[in-house]
């Protein structure tokens, strides 16, 4: 439809303020969504990395036979969820404890006996950190006779999962709220664009333009404005990402799929808001 396209482009030229404002609105709202996207993506990455460090520790009896221990170590390493199994001797454990206790280190210097047991540190494969899986590994490791106790930070794992779920819910709520606000603002901008051109629209209808003919340029204009706004928002988001990423934290850029979705969302937002405003307002002219 070359006419509608020509008109839509002409609208940019005729009312640059109005069009600029709409694009700014869309870009502002998508910009916020973009920042949120970066935050969400990076929080997810951090959680994943933290999750990877979840491990199962099996404390061994002091009277465990070395060859049985070595056998068990190999056996546990073949569990489908397990990446590697490290054997920590009593001496190594004392050394680690000293390092971790820091200030109170001198305390151990005075000990006559080493109170710490030997242990297996069982590391899990990526993607096998669901609470059920971790529990299963812990149970099987605990079944060995010479294993005194198994620890695997159950509360911690539950907390991470809770955090992820809370973060997901927050993303939905905040993202939805911002999208709603963006729609409202764009709708208002389009309504104002139509308001500013109400004489024009009235005249169009007087010379026999159908509703579709009148609407099409507005819809196309809304779409292009939305796309423009989304592109702007993307640029801003990227700028902020570069500034933050260098100076403050180590951040990852959002996945490419999200970027494309953002552009599409801009266009859809623009055309949707235009359609709603045009349809509602045309009745009143």
């Amino acid at each position, binding site marked *: 439809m070359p*006419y509608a396209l020509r008109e839509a482009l002409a609208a940019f030229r*005729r009312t640059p303020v109005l069009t600029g404002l709409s694009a700014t609105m869309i870009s502002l709202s998508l910009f916020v969504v973009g920042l949120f996207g970066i935050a969400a993506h990076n929080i997810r990455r951090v959680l994943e990395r933290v999750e990877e460090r979840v491990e199962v520790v099996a404390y061994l009896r002091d009277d465990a036979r070395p060859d049985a221990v070595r056998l068990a170590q190999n056996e546990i390493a073949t569990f489908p969820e397990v990446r590697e199994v490290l054997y920590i001797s009593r001496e190594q454990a004392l050394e680690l404890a000293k390092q971790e206790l820091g200030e109170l280190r001198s305390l151990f210097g005075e000990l006559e006996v080493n109170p710490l047991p030997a242990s297996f540190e069982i590391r899990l494969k990526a993607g096998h950190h669901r609470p059920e899986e971790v529990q299963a590994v812990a149970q099987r490791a605990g079944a060995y006779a010479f294993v005194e106790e198994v620890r695997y930070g159950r509360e911690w794992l539950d907390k991470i999962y809770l955090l992820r779920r809370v973060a997901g819910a927050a993303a939905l709520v905040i993202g939805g709220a911002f999208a709603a606000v963006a729609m409202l603002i764009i709708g208002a901008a389009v309504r104002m664009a139509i308001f500013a051109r109400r*004489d*024009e629209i*009235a*005249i*169009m*209808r*007087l*010379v*026999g*333009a*159908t*509703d579709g*003919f009148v609407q099409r340029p507005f819809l196309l204009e809304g779409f292009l404005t939305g796309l423009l706004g989304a592109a702007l928002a993307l640029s801003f988001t990227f700028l902020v990402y570069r500034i933050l990423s260098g100076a403050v934290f180590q951040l990852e850029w959002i996945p490419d799929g999200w970027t494309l979705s953002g552009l599409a969302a801009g266009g859809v937002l623009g055309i949707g808001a235009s359609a709603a405003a045009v349809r509602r307002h045309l009745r009143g002219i």
Partner: protein
Amino acid sequence: MILFDHVSKEYPRSGLALNDVSFQVRKGEFCFLTGHSGAGKSTVLRLIHMADEPTRGEVRVSGYASGKIRPREISMLRRKIGYVFQDFRLLLDRSAAENVAFALQVTGARAAVIRVKVGRLLAQVGLAAKAESYPAELSGGEQQRVAVARALANDPIVLLADEPTGNLDERATRGIFDLFRSINTAGTAVILATHDLELVRQNSGYRVLELDHGALVYDSTSSS
């Protein structure tokens, strides 16, 4: 082709603008619509254009009846009606040529056809030199002539002209009137609302409808 059947039109703040008006205009007829200021002339034209609905009675135009016509049909009907509005109603952000072209674009005409036709129409109303001027850059009479050119763009079957020469000098008035006459000769019905009684007297061969306070008080066809 145009039928007013006991039509009344009442406006909230103004009372009856039209009061039980009945008349018929045939294909290819030429007809003056006269009356004092506020008599209801523009209201009659607006009803024909289906820009308003009668409060009572029925208006029929080219087979469509007021009250039954659907929005899409109104658009189609309007493409067959040329209307010179009393206040011109030009698109202020388009040049004279673009204003005339717009009436053609609406119907989906091809760009090449539009260009040729717009040039011819502007020449007919004596505005070929002002094709690229915007309404704000045109004198009152020039705007009125753009409105006339636009009304003729789609080769209408009816031309409604509301005071089309109110801002024109005698020579321009004669030119526009001659244009209307030649269009009428080619088969288009013309309804010309005016209070230029001079013009009506000079062309006494045509039918005259006279309104007074919303009532049809004289119809030269039925009385003679």
